[in-house]
C-alpha cells in the first residue's frame, strides 16, 4: 500500500504482463527501457494522469487487448463462445414458448411447446425425426427434442467448465504463489504432486474416481437442492475429479511466474520500503499473474469440456434422462447407420465449442505474450 503511494511510477510501470515471461536476463535488459517509457506517463490512474500529459500511452492490458482485437480467429472464437453461452442460458426459455399446440396421439392429450420442447419429454411416436418446424433439430430415438437436449447439454458443459475453472484458478494460484514465494515444504509437496499428476493420465484418475464412487455420488449429491435428482448429480464428482487433475499444472505455471516476479526490482523496492509479504503477494505478484492465468485457464477449458463429454460418453458422467453432449453422442452412435444426424449434431457442436476455446486460448497467448510466438 505505502509503496504504491510513495512511488506510483515504479509499481505500476513495471506491470507489463510480458516482462516477466522472458528469461530474467532479457527482463533486466528491457527494464530501463520500460522505465524510461513509462515514467512520464503514469498509466492506470486516470484522474491523476490527465493533467500535464499530451497523450496517454496505452496500458499493457490495453495493448494486449488491442492485439487480441486484431486477431480475427480469436475474435470469431469469442463470438462463437458468446453465442453458445447465450443459447444455453436463455435459449431453452425462449424455445419453450415457440410453437403451436400439438395433439399427441400416444397420450391423447394436446400439449404446448413448453412440453414438447422440454429436454425430458418423450413423444414416442415421433422418434428419429429430421429437422422440422416443430422439432428444429429433429428428435432422438425416444422422441425427445434434440434442440432442447442440445441446449441442456451445452449448459452442462459450460457449467462444468466454469466450476472446474474456479477451483483450478483458486487452488492453482494459491498454492503456486505460496510455493513460488516461500519455497520450502509447500514447494516440495507441489513438485511431487505435479509429478504424479503428470505421470497419471488425468482422464484415468477421473475414470477411476467416477467408476468407483459414481453410483454413490448419484445418491448423495442429488439431495442438494439446485442439482436435484435429474441425472446430473454425478457431474459434481466429475467436476471435482477434473479440477483435481487440472490444478497442479496451473500451480506450476503460477509458481514459475512467481519465482521470476519475486526477483524483479519492484518487488525488491516494495520489500525495502517495508511492505509486508501479504501485501507484496496481493498487490505486486497476483496482479502480474493475470496473463498467464487467463491463457492457461482458457486452454484448460477445452480440456475440461472434452473431459466431461468423454466421461459422459463412457457412461460415467451424466446419467439418463439427463442430457450432455457426450451422452447424446453415445446415444446417437447406436443409430449411426440409420440416423447419422443424431450423432453428427452433438459431435459438430462439441467440436465447435472446443475449437473456439482452443483458438481463443492461442489468441490470448499471442496477445499477452507476444514474444512467445515462434
Amino acid at each position, binding site marked *: 500500500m505505502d509503496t504504491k503511494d510513495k512511488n506510483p511510477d515504479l509499481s505500476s510501470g513495471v506491470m507489463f504482463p510480458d516482462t516477466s515471461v522472458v528469461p530474467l536476463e532479457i527482463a533486466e535488459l528491457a527494464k530501463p527501457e520500460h522505465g524510461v517509457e513509462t515514467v512520464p506517463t503514469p498509466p492506470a490512474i486516470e484522474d491523476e494522469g490527465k493533467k500535464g500529459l499530451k497523450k496517454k500511452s496505452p496500458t499493457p492490458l490495453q495493448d494486449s487487448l488491442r492485439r487480441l482485437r486484431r486477431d480475427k480467429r480469436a475474435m470469431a472464437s469469442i463470438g462463437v463462445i458468446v453465442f453458445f453461452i447465450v443459447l444455453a442460458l436463455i435459449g431453452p426459455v425462449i424455445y419453450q414458448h415457440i410453437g403451436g399446440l400439438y395433439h399427441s396421439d400416444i397420450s391423447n392429450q394436446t400439449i404446448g411447446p413448453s412440453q414438447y420442447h422440454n429436454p425430458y419429454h418423450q413423444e414416442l411416436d415421433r422418434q428419429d425425426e429430421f429437422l422440422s418446424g416443430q422439432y428444429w433439430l429433429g428428435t432422438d430415438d425416444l422422441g425427445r427434442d434434440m434442440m432442447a437436449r442440445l441446449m441442456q447439454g451445452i449448459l452442462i458443459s459450460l457449467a462444468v467448465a466454469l466450476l472446474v475453472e474456479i477451483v483450478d484458478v483458486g487452488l492453482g494460484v494459491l498454492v503456486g504463489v505460496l510455493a513460488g514465494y516461500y519455497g520450502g515444504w509447500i514447494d516440495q509437496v507441489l513438485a*511431487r504432486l505435479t*509429478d*504424479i499428476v*503428470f*505421470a*497419471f*493420465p*488425468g*482422464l*484415468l*484418475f477421473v*475414470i*477411476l*474416481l467416477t*467408476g*468407483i*464412487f459414481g*453410483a*454413490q455420488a448419484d445418491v448423495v449429491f442429488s439431495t442438494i437442492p439446485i442439482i436435484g435428482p435429474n441425472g446430473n448429480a454425478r457431474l459434481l464428482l466429475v467436476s471435482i475429479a477434473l479440477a483435481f487433475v487440472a490444478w497442479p499444472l496451473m500451480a506450476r505455471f503460477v509458481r514459475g511466474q512467481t519465482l521470476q516476479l519475486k526477483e524483479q526490482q519492484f518487488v525488491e523496492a516494495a520489500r525495502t520500503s517495508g511492505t509486508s509479504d501479504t501485501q507484496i503477494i496481493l498487490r505486486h505478484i497476483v496482479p502480474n499473474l493475470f496473463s498467464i492465468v487467463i491463457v492457461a485457464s482458457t486452454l484448460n477449458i*477445452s480440456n475440461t469440456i*472434452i473431459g466431461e*463429454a*468423454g466421461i459422459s*460418453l*463412457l*457412461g*460415467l458422467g451424466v446419467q439418463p434422462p439427463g442430457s450432455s453432449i*457426450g451422452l447424446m*453422442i453415445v446415444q*446417437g*452412435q447406436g443409430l*449411426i*447407420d440409420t440416423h*447419422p444426424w443424431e*450423432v*453428427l449434431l452433438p*459431435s459438430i457442436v*462439441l*467440436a465447435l465449442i*472446443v*475449437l473456439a476455446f*482452443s*483458438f481463443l486460448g*492461442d489468441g490470448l497467448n499471442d496477445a499477452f505474450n507476444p514474444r512467445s510466438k*515462434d
Partner: protein
Amino acid sequence: MIQFLVKRFIGLIFVLIGVTFITFILGYFAPGDPIRDMLGEHFNLVVYNQLRHAYGLDLPWYQQYFNFLSHMFRFDFGFSYKYTNRAVMDILKDGVPVSAELGFWALILQMLVGVPVGIFSALKANTWIDTVNMGFILILYSIPVFVLAVVMQVVIIWFDQKTGASWPVSNWGTPWAYDPADLSYKVIPILVFAAGGMAYIARLSRASMLEVLKQDFVRTARAKGLLERVVIYKHALRNAMIPLLTVFGLLLALLVSGAFFIENIFNIPGIGYETVQSISDRDYPVIQATVVLFAVAVVIGNMLSDILYSLVDPRIKAQ
C-alpha cells in the same frame, strides 16, 4: 550419469507408490460390499467371513496395501469380483495384445507422418502452405478423439451405402495379423487413434525446426556454402529431433486416454474396453489393475524419454 539414473529411478519409485496408493485407497473406500454382492441370497456369515479372509479384506488397510503392492510386482492383481475364481490378469490377458497393437501402430504412424509434416511446414514457414497446414493440424489437435471417431464412422457408413462396399466400423479381427480382412478392421481406428498425437508431433517438430534454423551453426553451414539440402537434412534436422524425445511419455498418456474412447466406440476388445465394462460391473480389482498398468506404461515412457534425452543432450544432466 549413474547419479542421474539413480535419481530418476528414485523419482520413478516415488511416483509409482503414489499412483498405486491412490488406486488402492479409492478401491478400499469403494462403496458397497463386493463379498456380500457375490454371495447374494446365499448369504451366510461363516462363508462370508471365510471369503473376506480369502480375499484379504479383513486385514487393516496398510497390510492390504502392502499385499496389493507385493502381488502387483508379481503381476498378480488378485481375483475378479464378477467372474469368481478368474484371475484379473487372466481377464486382461486377452486385452493387452490388442491395446498394445493399437498403440504401437499409432505411435509409428504419429512419428512417420507427424515429423515430416512439421518439418515441411517449418521449411515453408509463413507461406500460405504453412498457414493452411498448421491450421489443419491445430484443428486435428483440438478436436476430441471420440468426435473424430464417430464422424469417421458416419463417413464410412455413408461410403458403404453409396458404393455397396462393406468396410466394418466395429470389431478388431485377429491381433497382430494383417490379412486384408483384418486390415479393414484396423486401418480406420489406428488412423483416428493416431490423429491427435500426430498433430501434436507436427506442431512440436515445426517449432523445434524453426528454432534450430535460427541457430548460429546453421548460418555458419550456409555461409560455408553447403547445399541447402545438406544444411537442412544433415545439420538442422538432427538437432531439431532432440526435443521430440521428451514427448514420448506424453504421447503414451495421450494414447492411454484415447484408448478408452477408441476401443469403446469401435468395439475393440482391448483393456480400455474391458475397463469400462468392469466399471459397470463394479469389478474393482479389474479397474485397479488396468489403471496401474496404464499408469506404469506412462511412467516408464516418461522415464525412457528422460534417459534418452540425457544421452543425446548431456547438458540436461546438470539440472
